[in-house]
C-alpha cells in the first residue's frame, strides 16, 4: 500500500516568493565577499596532499643501488599493462643479484591506481606528488629507468612543489 507522505504546505510568505528570492540573493552576496579559492595554476602550484598518486619514481639506496630487483610484481599487478621490465644480473656487489636493465612505463596507458606501489616487495616503485608532466608527443610520455630515477632525485624530500614555490619567490 502506498504511503501518503504529507507534502510541504507553503505558507503565505512562501507563496509570494519574495523572501525566498531575497534569501537566495543574500547567499550569492555572501559568497561575493568570501575568500576566493582559485589557485593561479602556472604561477602558484597546488601542493597535493600526502598519498597523492602522481608520476612514478624508482627509489635508490644510499649507495646508489637501485632498489628495484626486477621481480615484475608491479607489471603483474598493473591492470592496464603499462609497465615493461627487462631484468638482468645486477652489476652491484651484494645480496640482490637482479636489477632492471630496462624499466619502461607508458604514462599514457597508466591509470595511476597505485597497484604497482602496493605490489612492490622492495619499496622501489612509488607514485610521487608530481602531477603536471603533460607533453606534446606520445614518445615523451614513455618514461624509462633513467627518467624514473631522475624523478626520484627531484622528489627525494617529498617537497617538489613547495621547493619550486620557494625558488620562485627567491628569484
Amino acid at each position, binding site marked *: 500500500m502506498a504511503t501518503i507522505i504529507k507534502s510541504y504546505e507553503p505558507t503565505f510568505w512562501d507563496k509570494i516568493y519574495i523572501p525566498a528570492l531575497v534569501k537566495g540573493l543574500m547567499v550569492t552576496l555572501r559568497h561575493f565577499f568570501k575568500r576566493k579559492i582559485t589557485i593561479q595554476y602556472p604561477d602558484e602550484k597546488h601542493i597535493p596532499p600526502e598519498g597523492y598518486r602522481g608520476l612514478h619514481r624508482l627509489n635508490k639506496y644510499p649507495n646508489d643501488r637501485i632498489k628495484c630487483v626486477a621481480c*615484475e*610484481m608491479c607489471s*603483474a599487478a598493473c591492470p592496464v599493462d603499462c609497465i615493461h621490465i627487462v631484468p*638482468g*644480473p645486477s652489476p652491484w656487489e651484494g*645480496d640482490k*643479484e637482479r636489477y632492471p636493465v630496462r624499466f619502461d612505463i607508458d604514462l599514457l596507458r597508466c591509470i595511476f591506481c597505485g597497484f604497482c606501489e602496493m605490489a612492490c616487495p622492495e619499496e622501489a616503485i612509488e607514485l610521487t606528488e608530481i602531477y603536471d608532466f603533460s607533453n606534446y608527443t606520445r614518445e615523451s610520455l614513455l618514461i624509462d629507468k633513467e627518467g624514473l630515477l631522475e624523478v626520484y632525485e627531484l622528489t627525494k624530500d617529498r617537497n617538489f612543489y613547495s621547493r619550486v614555490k620557494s625558488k620562485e619567490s627567491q628569484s
Partner: protein
Amino acid sequence: MPLLKIDSLEIEVEKGTTVLQAAMVNGIEIPYYCYHPALEIVGSCRMCLVEVEGMPKLQVSCNTFVGEAPPERKIEGKYDMVVNTHNDLVIQERKNVLEFLLLNHPLDCPVCDQAGECYLQDYSFKFGNAHSRFDEDKRVRPNEYLGSQIVINHNRCILCSRCIRFTREISGTSELFVEARGNKSKIAALEDKPLDNLLAGNVADICPVGALLSTDYIHKNRIWNLKKQPSVCQDCSVGCNVDVFYQKDKILRLTPRENHDVNGYFMCDIGRYGFHRFEDLDRITTPMARSNGSFSAVSWDEAIRKTADKLGDEGAKIAGIVSPFHTNETNFMLGQIINGPTGTLPQMNDEEIIYQSGFRISNDRSPNRRGMSDVCPALLEDLVSEIDNQDVRMIYVLDDGIDREIDDVWKKILAKMDFVVVQTYAMTTLAQSANIILPGPAPYEREGTITNDGGRVQWLRPSLPMKGESRADWEILMMVMKALDKDAQDFTDIGQVMKDMGEKFPAYDGLSFFRLGPHGMSLNGRANG
C-alpha cells in the same frame, strides 16, 4: 589386495605401493620435496609426514609402504592401514617442518627465478606459518657454479638431494654430493668433475626450490609472463616431449614433459638449448626469385606461377628431395607432386649416447626420418646416380634447414640443374643455389605430425607465429599442386592432409591431432604402408 583408508577415502591398492602414491593417484594432496617418481626414495625432507594409525610417530608417506595385515590385526575389522593426512597433528607438523626448512632460506622471491613455480612458495602459502621464530642471523653463502650451465644458490637449497640422486641414478655420472655435515652441509660438485654431462640441465628442473638454476634462463624473465606450449623436441630422432615456454615471438626455455613411452621425465641439453640456433636468424620472409645471380622478392602468385611453369613442362624430369626435418604431411605432399626420382640428402650422423637409466640420445639428429620414409615409400638409396642416369634437369627441395651441410657431390648436381626450387626458412647453402625460394616456417613454428625412431607418431605443435609472408609448408605445396593440376584436391586445413595421407598409407589411417593427444600414438602393430 590391501585395503587402505586415507582420511575418509577407502582405497584398494597393490601391495608395495607407498602411501604418497596411493594418495596422489586418488587426488589427496600430500606435500613433498625430496620424492621424485623417477628417483630412489630417501624421505629426507619430512614434508610428507602423515599419521598412520597404530604407529607411535608420524610417518613419511613417501617411504611408507602399504602391506597386508593379518586378519586379527585389521583396523575396524577390514582396513590394512588407516592414514590421516589432514588432522590437526599433521597440519601442525607441516607448519613445523616448513619453519625448519625456511630457517636459512633468504626469502628472496623477488629476485628468484623459481618464483611462480616454486614448491617452497606454494606450500608455505598453503600449509606454512606466516612468520618464523628464528631470530638469529641467517646463514649466507655465495653462489657457486656446479658446471658450466648450472649455478647453485646455497641459501635457497633445502638439501632434498634430488639433484644428487639424479646424477647417480639417471645420468650415472655421480658428480654431485653433500659436502660436510649438519648446519654446514651443502650440495657440491667433485673438484675434478664438474656437472657438465648432457643431462645436467635437468637438475634445474627437478630442484623443487630456486637453488639450482640454469645460466641460460637466469634473470631473463618471470615465469608468469611466459606461455607454455606442449610440443616435441626436434633435435634428434628420439622425439622427447617438451614444454616450450615463450613470450610473444621469443622462446625463453624448454623443459621436458612427462611421457613414459618416450623420454620419461627428462631431456638432454642438446635439445634443451637447441632452440637458440633459430634465434636472430636472417629469415626469408617473402618468396624470392633469382635473376642474374641475385635474389629479389616476388609475390606468392608470381613465385608459384614461375614454379608451375617450369615444373609443368611436357616431358620435364623432376627430382624431389624430401627432408627428415619436415613433418609427415609436408613430405607426403611433396611425394604426391613429384613423379620423378625421390630421395633425401645424406644422413648426418652423430654420436649415440645411452645413459645408465636407459635415457638415449640418438645418433640421427633429424626428428622425422622414420615418418619421412613411411610416407614416401619410393625413396631411392642412391639418388645421385639416378639423377645422372635419368638426366634430370629440375629439382624440388625441402630444405633441412641451417644444420645441413652440402658436400661437393651435391654442389655439382645442383649446379647442373636448370631449375631448382627450395622450400626453406633461411638463406642456407641449398637456398643459395635455388632459382625460386619459397619461405616456410622454421622449427617451433611448424605444425603437423612427426614419427620418432620408435614408431611413435607425435603431435608437433607450433609455439611461435610464422614470420612475414611465410606460409605453412603443406600450404605452399598445395599451391604448387593446384597450379600444376587444376583438378587437384583442395585442402583447407592440415587435418584434411592427414586424412588423405591415411588413405594412401594405412599405417597412418585415422590419424588426427585429437587422437594423438599429448603423448602421441604408436604405429607398431598397424599395417605398414
